[in-house]
């Protein structure tokens, strides 16, 4: 039984990687450049700038409420200088994966935006200088769900059936159908696309925070943000929430008063977000 499980995980990994979309040329080019030392933001913005649609998408993301920049960021070069390469990489992938928000993706997109917002709030209140990167990690933490829905619809359909039947979390339904969940697929994608280690750990370990050896705070913040949004958005009939990892509060040094402040800020900020989401359509 165990040997069979192992084979099917490997087989599934192969299938996922095979079905994965090729990143647009511009994205690949920019990515390679950003891996080199001492590359100028100017050059990166020139490369990305060749794709006007992509540039527009990135600028819209940067100017959306979850980044909370008080002044509009008008140029890509400015954005790159302000946000740094890791965040830009995250935004590039977001623009590709969430390029077309079709109705089936709407729920995932809304949750992604809310998590990004909350992750940013937590990171800023903790005075982390990597707050922008952590925000984009919030945006991407369910990226493999998009990949499943768009590129592996047969598997996604099975997961949806289990969710309807058992009224459970995506995580639990995924485990039932595939034997593992979206966080594992996140790791495969992050490795395939050469994500920086910080983003990789945030995306792969937001449910298994203890596995984040180099960037535990990143994983912990995404874990916390995800749970906070689920609790905040509870609706009758779907009272299922994920767990706060036992190490999360300790890693982030969270106390009740602090948590209360985060929830308050999240509540205030999410009002503005409701309309930001519509713009993205």
């Amino acid at each position: 039984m165990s040997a069979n499980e192992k084979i099917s995980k490997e087989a599934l990994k192969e299938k996922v990687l095979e079905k994965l979309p090729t990143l647009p040329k511009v994205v690949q080019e920019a990515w390679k450049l950003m891996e080199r030392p001492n590359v100028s933001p100017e050059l990166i913005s020139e490369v990305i700038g060749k794709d006007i649609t992509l540039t527009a998408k990135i600028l819209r993301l940067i100017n959306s409420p979850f980044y909370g920049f008080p002044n509009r960021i008008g140029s890509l070069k400015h954005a790159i200088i302000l946000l740094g390469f890791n965040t830009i990489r995250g935004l590039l992938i977001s623009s590709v994966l969430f390029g077309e928000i079709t109705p089936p993706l709407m729920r995932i997109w809304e949750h992604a935006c809310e998590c990004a917002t909350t992750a940013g709030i937590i990171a800023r209140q903790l005075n982390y200088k990597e707050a922008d990167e952590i925000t984009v990690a919030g945006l991407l933490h369910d990226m493999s769900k998009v990949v499943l829905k768009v590129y592996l619809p047969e598997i996604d359909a099975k997961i949806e059936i289990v969710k309807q039947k058992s009224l459970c979390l995506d995580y639990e339904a995924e485990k039932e159908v595939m034997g593992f969940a979206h966080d594992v697929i996140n790791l495969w994608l992050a490795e395939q696309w050469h994500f920086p280690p910080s983003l990789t750990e945030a995306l792969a370990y937001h449910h298994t925070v203890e596995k984040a050896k180099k960037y535990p705070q990143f994983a912990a913040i995404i874990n916390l943000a995800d749970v906070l949004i689920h609790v905040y958005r509870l609706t009758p009939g779907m009272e299922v929430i994920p767990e706060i990892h036992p190490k999360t509060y300790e890693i982030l040094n969270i106390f009740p008063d602090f948590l209360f402040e985060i929830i308050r800020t999240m509540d205030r900020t999410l009002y503005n977000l409701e309309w930001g989401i519509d713009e993205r359509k």
Partner: protein
Amino acid sequence: MKVCIPIEKAQPGMRLAEDISNVTGMILCRQGTILTETLIERLKNANVEKLIIEEFISEEEARKQFEEKKILINKAFANKSSPSMQMLKEVFLKFWEEKYLINVSK
């Protein structure tokens, strides 16, 4: 209770629950301002798209909504016994209580 509405739904007499800023962060209108016809026109001209206003709800309605939140929270946390989750539950209950009952007589 604070509610977010599109500017098309704004009516004179409504009270702003939050400051309104334009895209560059400049505050156009302070929290607490009562909207007038003129003000709404000017905000529309300034490309404001949404407002957060105070919605009046009765004490009874506030208590009812709070009870509904409590039921949701209790159900969701029913089998979550870890100290982390219990702390989160307490904090959320306190948050919803403040949000719904803050204007209700103590």
